């Protein structure tokens, strides 16, 4: 159990943070790209400033959303490891599907049709899933340890 705490908890925290950062950058780029598509000229400072501000604002939101999502998704993935031995693959898919699930859940529970602007398109949703997949993969690799008593190996 000690191994579980020392290996899994930091890996989960890191996976959440990485996913929050990546999705935040995707969100920034999506909004700025939408402005460009409307003919708005953007300076490099606009890109840098927006990415930085979103890391603080939107990144924090995504960390809060991703943390419980990964908790559930990785528990399910840990069980699936009994039948699917590819650890990185299983956690990456679990992360991606968890992200899809939480995006759909948020849209269902909140008044706006689509709460997260970048996920208004399937491309944006796919990129968010990919970001969560990276987080999941990272978790799978960092939380690997060998203990015959634990199913997480």
């Amino acid at each position, binding site marked *: 159990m000690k191994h579980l705490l020392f290996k899994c908890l930091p890996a989960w925290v890191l996976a959440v943070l990485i996913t929050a950062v990546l999705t935040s950058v995707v969100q920034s780029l999506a*909004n700025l790209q939408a402005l460009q598509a*409307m003919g*708005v000229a953007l300076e490099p400072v606009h890109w840098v400033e927006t990415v930085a501000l979103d890391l603080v604002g939107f990144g924090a*939101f995504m960390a809060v959303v991703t943390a419980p999502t990964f908790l559930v998704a990785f528990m399910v993935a840990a069980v699936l490891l009994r039948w699917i031995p590819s650890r990185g693959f299983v956690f990456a898919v679990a992360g991606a599907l968890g992200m899809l699930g939480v995006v759909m859940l948020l849209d269902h529970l*909140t008044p706006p049709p689509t709460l*997260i*602007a970048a996920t208004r398109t399937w491309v944006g949703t796919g990129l968010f899933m990919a970001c969560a997949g990276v987080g999941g993969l990272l978790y799978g690799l960092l939380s690997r340890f060998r203990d015959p008593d634990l199913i997480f190996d």
Partner: protein
Amino acid sequence: MKKLTLLSAFLVMVLPASVNAADYRVETVVEGLEHPWSIAFLPDGSRLVTERVGRLRLIDPQGQLREEAIAGLPDDIHVGGQAGLKDVVLAPDFEQSAEVFLTYACGTRTSNHLCLGRGELSDNTLSNFEEIFRTQPAKRGSAHYGGRMVFLPDDTLLLTMGDGFDYREEAQDPSNHLGTTLRLDRDGQAPADNPFINDPNAADEVYSYGHRNAQGLIHDPRTGWVFSNEHGPKGGDEINIIEPGKNYGWPVVTHGVDYTGARITPFTEKDGMVSPLVDWTPSIAPSGLTLYDGELFPQWQGDLFNGALAARKVQRVMLEEDRVVGEESILEELGRRIRDVRTGPDGALYLLTDHADGEVLRVVPAN
């Protein structure tokens, strides 16, 4: 009057800046309305009230709510989320024509529009009701319909249409109706002098564009100005003076950010885009709007009163010409979401509260 609420006059002494606003009392005209959205005053002293759930109700001159809803409304009203029956406005020649105009969400959750229709009111029935205009394109989701109307002195009708929430970039494209103010004649057609009538890249009905979700719209007969308020996202609520052909900026310029905290744009102003008369950050969620011209509160004359949903109050905006010289929050003590604010023909300020047990409230001088 079922309930009488006296508001404390001590605020007059405590808050000298609020002297003019604090000296009022609030009467409940009617309660038990399901999310009332708009009110119109009939010449005989009756009042029409829309309920978002798709009912039009009549309050008689004695203040009694008729139990049966008015019959004859369209059967394709889409109800859900923000969708449903919205504004009700009488034709300028109502006493002769008996015409009533309604806005409502129409269609389904996955494909819907804002519709404008009209019918003739008689004996608790809207007869000959017909849809005369439908915004395009169809949108998915039950949010951001705008839906507020006002007649101009030339007998044309201004109508606000929201950006549909998921389609905010469309507000910068006047070739469609999303995120616009529209100007129509009484048959739902674009008047020949509309600002984009000869522009092949814009819809004929568009009067102004670059709006998010305008739910307050009034015409000031003294100056000819049209005032509109609109919901910003998280922050960036606005009051604007609407001029034909102008771009009001959304979503290229705003003081707000997405509900998630994401930055929508780096810009709060830009050449070629009209800046708001008033900006509220954080948001108050502005709803109905009135320019007070009644006799009961002489000190309020010429001021804008703006309902607030999220902030649960009425925001008084004091004007000098087209300049804001002060603001004051009133009626916060009610703790109710204010959906509409109107100046009644009796000079009282009328409020609709946005609740499942919504009310029509009447604000009159304390003495």
